């Protein structure tokens, strides 16, 4: 070009922007691309720790498994204890006795093991959406708030922690299967606020054993939910729906 200004860099063409060739990408580059991509994906898959935010050592398959133990179904009571320790003991205490006047006890509580109007459906509802206002537990009145857990805990986790509190400290009630939690969750999907005692009392009593005996029409929580927490027949207490007063 007849540009009077000639800079030290040799001008290639009419424009001062270099041209771009259209040579195809060399074959070997595509091969490299595929090989590196393949091994990268392989490495990531093998060292992902299940893409969980609480696995820090990729050699440790899962923190629940404990160093490559056979990946069987997790005992809901073991998992439940862990969930309880993490989330519940601040109020209900690790003894399950609660704090007199502030947080109701779980030991022998009709809310937990069942009572004249307290069914398993109420228990699951309380855990999913929380509870507020005055409540009567074992003859004492408590007026506090329980937070909802539906966005924090999965169906399996809720089932596990309920199964745990229903079988610990001398409590002896049937395990709660995850698909039952899923069913209640589906029924109450519209609920946006915590329950009150009055609102719960208005709902008819339902027990897990009944729900399982005549399965819900919409099989909401089938699939993996049912698998990972089996209803635990091995628990030596075949589901005897507690109807103690």
């Amino acid at each position, binding site marked *: 070009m007849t540009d009077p200004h000639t*800079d030290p*860099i040799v001008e290639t063409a009419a424009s001062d922007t270099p041209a771009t060739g259209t040579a195809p990408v060399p074959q070997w580059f595509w091969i490299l691309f595929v090989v590196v991509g393949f091994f990268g994906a392989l490495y990531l898959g093998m060292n992902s720790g299940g893409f969980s935010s609480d696995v820090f050592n990729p050699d440790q398959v899962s923190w629940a498994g404990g160093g490559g133990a056979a990946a069987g179904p997790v005992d809901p009571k073991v998992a439940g204890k862990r969930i309880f320790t993490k989330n519940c003991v601040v109020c209900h205490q690790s003894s399950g006795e609660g704090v007199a006047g502030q947080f109701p006890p779980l030991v022998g509580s009709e809310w937990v093991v069942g009572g004249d109007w307290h069914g398993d459906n109420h228990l699951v509802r309380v855990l999913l959406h929380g509870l507020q206002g005055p409540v009567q537990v074992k003859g004492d009145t408590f007026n506090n708030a329980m937070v909802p857990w539906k966005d924090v805990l999965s169906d399996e986790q809720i089932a596990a922690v309920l199964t745990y509190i229903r079988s610990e400290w001398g409590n002896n009630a049937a395990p709660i299967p995850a698909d039952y939690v899923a069913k209640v969750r589906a029924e109450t999907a519209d609920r946006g606020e915590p329950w009150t005692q009055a609102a719960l009392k208005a709902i008819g009593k339902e027990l897990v054993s009944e729900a399982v005996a005549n399965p819900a029409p919409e099989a909401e929580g089938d699939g993996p939910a049912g698998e990972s927490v089996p209803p635990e027949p091995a628990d030596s207490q075949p589901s005897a729906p507690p109807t103690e007063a």
Partner: protein
Amino acid sequence: MIQTSTATRPAPAEIDRSVQGTVLFCFGSAIFWLLAGCLLHAVAGAKLVMPGFLDGIGFLTYGRVLPAATNAIAFGWASLSAIGVALWLCARLNGAMLRASALIVSAVVAWNAAVLVGVLAILAGSSTGIPGLEMPGGVSVVLLVAYLPIGLWALSTFRTGAPGFVSQWYLVAALLAFPWLYTTANALLVWQGTPGSAMGAIFAWFDSGFFGLWLLPIALAAAYYFLPRAAGRPVFSRGLASLGFWTLVLCAGWMGTSRFQGGPIPAWMVSAGVVAAILLILPAIAVSSNLYLTIGDACERLWMQTPARFLITSAVFFLGWVSLLIIVTLPPVNSIIQFSLVNPGLTQTALHGIASLAFIGVLYALLGVRHPESTITPRSSLVFWLIVTGVGLILCASFFGGFFQGFALSDPIVTFANSITYAAPFRWVELAGHLCLLAAAAGLARDFAEQLLVSSPAQAPKPAAAQRPEVAAV
């Protein structure tokens, strides 16, 4: 502000005249920060080999001098010269005249003032303690505000249409990435803290992105612009360039967490970081092979031109840096060298071997516009070899020393004090490397000042083609 139509596209000479004052101001202040940073880094290096050197003084303690040095280099030298390069290349590639130079110059003045305050604050003991982001929160606000007119003007030059040339892609990427990276990192780590180890992941994203998405793309934009012109050939392959570009912008943000192998960051994030670091081989090979196939047999001729020699070496360092980075990221190697001299050495290699060399190459091209001498001069050759030697010494020291130190650190029988002993001789070599860089900075400052002063009488450089010896073309 800009002339958009290609029909009225101003001549390169006009464009250069409109930007060169601003760009030279960027470079002038950047060189000051290079000198200051290298001096501080040399002081820090000396303190490692002679713990008694300037000991017991608060503002000169190692833990303040070192971050003062790295911040002066990162935000003073590297970022300011990157801004200079970006301004010039955007103007040239998009045929835009810089008419608002007063605004840009005041932004650069504010930037310089902020870095000065930041570095002094670090020395005075107001560091945030987050590596790479030590400057107090107020400073980063000023930097971002100062960046606003610079970035907006540079991006506004792209209004002419689709950015068709490779360098333009890299420039857009860098100009957008810097505010994204710096705002995120400051918002979550400096202006308001993030508790716990989340900080590590966020910091790693910023740190790898600061180089890989800000400095490196601008260096590569310069290489893709100047080398084909110097060789007189088109860029070899658009497809290869495109692959190299996209793989880089993808990997650069992801690779940061690879430094936390075994650390308190979820395993999948660390593994993803490792994979991204390994995938970095793709852009490295794509860029270097594309440039190599472009230059071809013109290599020897280009070697004798100052800008081209700097830019070619920068691309070679890019390939070398990525290769070494991949080796030390592989988990069996990483478990040994993770906390040794190796990683800081690689950071220095990337910063000076890739970014500094490329930016200085562009600076010489700009100076060459005023003085049509593009063949390598003894002065520019000295600067070149001092940087290459300095980076080479630092790299060798960090690798040999780092592996010795790493093996000592990972052998349960060797005491910790011994790991220091193993590394000690290599720290002297590293110090020598930093002194070379300091000398290079001094040489560059002298060269820069002289060329500007000499040209001043002959101001209003209406370059006459007839007078210009065709040295470059041979």
